[in-house]
């Protein structure tokens, strides 16, 4: 029992939290006069019911994987990148710009568009990184401000240079598109695209950099203990900037999922997309690990997708799913409480 607790504790917390979240969600439904069994039934149908729903779940999850990875990468190096949202936006715009304005065969055009998004995100991440490394300005503050600059900046650029009827840009050329007629057909016309492959590649890249390379060793050392890193001759400033660059690049790629995959264009955003902020939740639930994040992103994607069915079939407002997600996050954040509870249980069981 003790061995199990040690090894599985990191998995136990998210699983516990999800279950608790769903139970309390059910209680809220009961209290407000909905039928939780019907609602959760509809939720499941909404995710797995048919291939269209499944495809849409994958589509929703894809950018969340990447934004989750972005948050996690920074977190692993001791930084709170709250600016993923803004990095997503600039990555989105950069990829769409390259997608519209370049003419090239797909093998060149598509990677180039993705890289453009990554680069834009990286630049957006480097600015707070530099401010932190050189002037000790806390990254939470600067990244939040960078989010607003990104939101209004991208809107301004679209309005000034790329505007088409419908408050949006042109569609990207098909040579830069991640979209796929084949996947669409397979999933009865869902907007599922090849981005999932990109997301999984990035997840592998993150795992590889962090755990297999000397760069990852340095990044993690700086994240845990700057004094010891300095003592060991590791350049702390350089690593802070690098961490923000890589994190920003991941976020930028998340933006390209929207630009080159789901939408094929960028429209003027009245508010934040939420992809970046959800990334914080995904990373938290996924315990900052590559595999955990993929699972968590699918869970959130599924909940969001299933919510639509829940409201149409069981009449439960979609906001309820928002509440459930919030509850899950709440419980993960309170993992201390869960820890304490499991301790109580295992101890009680033995006495």
């Amino acid at each position, binding site marked *: 029992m003790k061995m199990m607790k040690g090894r599985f504790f990191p998995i136990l917390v998210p699983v516990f939290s999800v279950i608790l979240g769903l139970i309390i969600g059910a209680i809220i439904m009961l209290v407000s006069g909905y039928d939780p069994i019907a609602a959760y039934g509809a939720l499941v149908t909404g995710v797995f019911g048919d291939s269209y729903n499944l495809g849409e779940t994958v589509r929703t999850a894809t950018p969340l994987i990447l934004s989750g990875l972005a948050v996690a990468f920074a977190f692993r190096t001791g930084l709170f990148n709250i600016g993923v949202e803004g990095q997503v936006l600039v990555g989105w715009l950069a990829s769409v710009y390259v997608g519209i304005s370049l003419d090239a065969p797909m093998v060149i055009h598509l990677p180039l568009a993705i890289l453009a998004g990554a680069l834009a995100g990286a630049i957006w991440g480097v600015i707070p990184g530099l401010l932190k490394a050189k002037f000790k300005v806390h990254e939470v503050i600067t990244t939040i401000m960078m989010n607003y600059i990104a939101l209004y900046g991208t809107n301004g650029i679209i309005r000034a240079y790329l505007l088409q009827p419908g408050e949006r840009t042109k569609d990207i050329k098909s040579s830069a598109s991640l979209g796929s007629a084949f996947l669409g057909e397979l999933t009865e016309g869902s907007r599922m695209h090849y981005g999932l492959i990109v997301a999984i590649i990035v997840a592998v890249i993150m795992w590889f950099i962090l755990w297999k390379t000397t760069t990852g060793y340095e990044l993690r*050392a700086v994240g845990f*203990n700057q*004094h*010891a890193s300095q*003592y*060991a*001759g590791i*350049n702390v400033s350089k690593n802070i900037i690098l961490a923000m660059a890589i994190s920003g690049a991941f976020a930028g790629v998340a933006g390209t999922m929207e630009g080159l995959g789901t939408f094929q264009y960028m429209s003027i955003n009245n508010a934040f997309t939420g992809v970046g902020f959800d990334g914080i939740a995904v990373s938290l639930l996924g315990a900052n690990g590559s595999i955990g994040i993929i699972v968590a992103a699918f869970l959130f994607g599924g909940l969001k997708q299933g919510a639509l069915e829940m409201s149409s079939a069981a009449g439960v407002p979609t906001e309820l799913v928002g509440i459930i997600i919030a509850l899950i996050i709440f419980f993960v954040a309170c993992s201390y409480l869960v820890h304490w509870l499991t301790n109580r249980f295992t101890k009680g069981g033995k006495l």
Partner: protein
Amino acid sequence: MEYVIEMRNIRKEFPGIVANDNVTLQVQKGEIHALLGENGAGKSTLMNVLFGLYQPEQGEIYIKGEKVDITDPNIANNLGIGMVHQHFMLVENFTVTENIILGREITTGGRIDLKKAAKEIQKLSDQYGLRVDPYAKIENISVGMQQRVEILKTLYRGAEILIFDEPTAVLTPQEIHELMEILKKLVAEGKSIILITHKLKEIMEACDRCTVIRRGRGIGTVDVASSSPRHLAEMMVGREVNFKVEKQPAQPKGAVLEITNLVVEDSRKVPVVNELNLQVKSGEILGIAGVDGNGQTELLEAITGLHKVKSGTVTLNGENITNQKPRKVTQSGLGHIPQDRHKHGLVLDFSIGTNMVLQTYYQQPFSKHKILKFQTIHNKAKALIDEFDVRTPSIHTPARALSGGNQQKAIIAREVDRSPDFLIAAQPTRGLDVGAIEFIHSKLIQERDKGKAVLLVSFELDEIMHVSDRIAVIYEGKIVAIVDPKETTEQELGLLMAGGKKDKAGDKV
């Protein structure tokens, strides 16, 4: 006989290790009870069980004859148990009073009554001779006073039983002396004390009885008055211990490290190292003796590239390393056992194996083309752990989970193993048991005999006298004297450390 504390047959396991195996501890009212054992023997663990931080798998605890279940520190507090941890738990930018009342605030009409609290604290402080200023900020007071604040914190909460986990490891000799007086005063007022220390001298001086633990098992309890340091050490290690290391006379050659007219300023622009000159030769151990705060820390940080040099030069192996980056200095031939092992020495959240290559991870054979070679790293770590007797369940255990002394041994293993031309050993045996100290000293001497230069900084005059070949006395940022340990006495050193004034010595704070 009723005991104030009786811990019976305590067993506590951690993944892969039994930290306490059937340990029994009985403390009488009004005594100072020493807890002695090698590094990793399980002393801190046993005290954490008593304080409610860990739950034992087996065993019972009785306080004043009554069976109790201490599931968290609050319960311990209510039972009158207070603990002074080795690493203080104080809020740096709070005042002494604010720190002490934290969690126990007295309020009048919803507002914290700091004045009243300060008065009470002053009273307590006077009663036990703690000399603490209730209005001082933690960040501005000495380590010794911070520790007295921790003591006051437990007294303020009504502690009758006080646990001290290696309180003297971070103190200067002067402060240790004061602490011993305080402990005696506490028991005179009816408190009972459990004291963990590796310094047998302190046990002989202040304690009534001593319980010895070896590798998690209780070995026995002895009356200190009818015992001797030698006997205690044997009980603890299980073999005879040489207190004095054997060494041949040094055969120094050319200078490896040369410091000329070094000036280092602290953050307030005060020159804490002031026109300092020093040479360390190949094949010698140079000891630096000095009262804490005379520029030792800044001197070491300046040499190692962690602190900016204002003027003057430092050369290592003939290479100018003044104001060079730490990596560059390391590559010029420096090894550094840092004074603060948690701050500089280890990444506590890395595994102990990973920490073993903190200085070399980027070099072959530990990595190639920026890819880490885990197999080689693990083999290296295993070899070092064996050679230096670092007690850990495995190389994958987080450094944080090792006992304090074993963390220190790991750092020493890493630095000594690279066999650098110039090795800085700052408080290298702080928190080590007598057996480990003997081993580390012989390692330092071995390096010396290989023709390396060793700079030893220590507050333990014993250590300086026994291990060094030459002693440099630092005072107010300058080297004021260089003496031969064979031709000096602790008294003379004490005088020199206090500024060389021949009248009253040792009273410098």
